């Protein structure tokens, strides 16, 4: 493909390249040749499970930084950073009362690249900031209006999940700050209507003299696995932080990106 002159022998690299791109392995992975034509570009996007969430074509304005601030993209990028660094941290961290605090210390002082936990921590702070800015941008550009109102709601849920990821991760260092911050934060669940033992309506849920909603059966108890922030709470928050919430958030993110495409593309007028 490099040499158009008929006489010259194709170079070794050219021949190797031609051989490689003809193999079954190559052709089973890259099915549509180089995306040099419009048709091939479309096919490349449409037949890729990751790319197909995105539109085949976008407006020029859609990639202008001024328009989107790239805040949604940055939030997603930070989610990937958190997933990757979090996965690495999980190889060392044990979510029990006996080990949790010392494992965090070890992650900083004994494990190679002790900055890993700091990246995870700062990435989390940055993600909360970018997700708020993303919401602010969507609001300012009016991108919550029909037909995008469904995706606005998906985004609101994702915002809450981001905050819950931050909240559950806050307990894992298992120091005084973490324990008392979660004590204070989870005490709000006491006041949940009907489901919290100090919330409105909870005193109505009685069977004779037996209170159905008390400190050992309310929403806060289900969250902490006990009456105070202890080992059970640490384990529950760990599972929610590492598996539960990321799983739900990941599914909703796929929906979120797909809806962006289906509702008229990124950030343009309809």
């Amino acid at each position, binding site marked *: 493909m490099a040499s158009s002159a008929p006489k010259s022998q194709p170079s070794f690299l050219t021949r190797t390249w031609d051989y490689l791109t003809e193999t079954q392995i190559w052709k089973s992975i890259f099915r549509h040749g180089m995306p040099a034509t419009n048709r091939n570009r479309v096919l490349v996007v449409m037949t890729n499970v990751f790319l197909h969430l995105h539109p085949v074509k976008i407006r020029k304005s859609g990639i202008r930084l001024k328009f989107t601030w790239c805040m949604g993209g940055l939030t997603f990028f930070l989610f990937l950073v958190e997933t990757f660094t979090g996965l690495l941290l999980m190889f060392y961290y044990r979510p029990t009362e006996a080990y949790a605090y010392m494992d965090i210390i070890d992650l900083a002082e004994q494990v190679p690249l002790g900055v890993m936990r700091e990246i995870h921590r700062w990435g989390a702070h940055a993600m909360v900031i970018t997700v708020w800015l993303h919401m602010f941008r969507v609001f300012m550009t009016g991108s919550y209006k029909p037909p995008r109102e469904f995706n606005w709601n998906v985004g609101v849920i994702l915002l809450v999940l981001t905050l819950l990821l931050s909240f559950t991760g806050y307990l894992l260092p298992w120091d005084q700050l973490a324990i*008392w911050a979660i004590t204070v934060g989870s005490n709000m669940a006491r006041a949940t209507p009907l489901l919290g033992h100090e919330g409105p309506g909870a005193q109505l849920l009685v069977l004779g003299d037996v209170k159905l909603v008390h400190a*050992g059966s309310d929403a806060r108890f289900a969250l902490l696995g*006990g009456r105070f922030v*202890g080992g059970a709470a640490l384990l529950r928050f760990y599972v929610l932080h590492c598996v539960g919430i990321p799983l739900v958030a990941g599914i909703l993110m796929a929906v979120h990106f797909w809806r962006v495409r289906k509702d008229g593309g990124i950030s343009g007028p309809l």
Partner: protein
Amino acid sequence: MAEEKTGPEEARAPEGGGPASSEAKPAVAIAPAPAAAAPVAPAPVPVAAAPVAPVAAAPAAVAVAPAAAPVGSPPMTPVTPDGPAPAALPLGRSNTIGPGVKASLEKKTAGDEERGLSRRSFMKWSLPIGWTAFSAAVASSLVASTRFLFPNVLFEPPQSFKAGFPAEYNVGEVDTRWKDAFGVWIVREPEGFYALIAVCTHLGCSPNWLAAENKFKCPCHGSGFYRTGINFEGPAPRPLERARIVLADDGQILVDKSVKFQQEKGEWDKAEAFLKA
């Protein structure tokens, strides 16, 4: 081909071998539309009347089992071919019925209908039953998953504990020996004892007893309480709570945190909120 399409159902198989020519088969299988209008219309009526059919056939059976054969329990005896013939026609799924098909259909309807197993009645009952069962399964697994979050055994300190003998406490002191284990201060006044629960009424942190300043102070947001438990500074909205304090049978002090007394409700005057020395 047509036979394969119609599948294993016996009623259809004779169609191929029956008098209908092989050219007629596709017309039956693929395009019943032109002539369909006529049979389709009467279909609902005889189906509704289908339970009646055995009754109509009853006279034939009467000879065998006289008179009052209850309608509720249709006879299991095979029905004579001329009996349910009218019912068979509308039930038939094709509009060209040769003698062989007719016979097989009659046979089928007779058996199925007597057991209430027509496709229509099967769907009529299986759909609601199926959805009910499915909903019940989903609902019960939701309940089970929720219940799973509430353990039967808690590895927490018990709500009530014995705090030693009254003589072990010095008059005028706030005793902090049970604070770490059970979250309770026992205050010894000249007249007796009371037990303060070491949970700040602001947001639930644990205050500290500062003997030099003669007050409880919460490190989280700075709430302060007198030794009685009354709040006087910081964001705490109400006094500390007191726990039930009594003498056990062996003469030790028994503190029970599951019974709480709140000052703002006037409960500190109750008998078990204060243990007289």
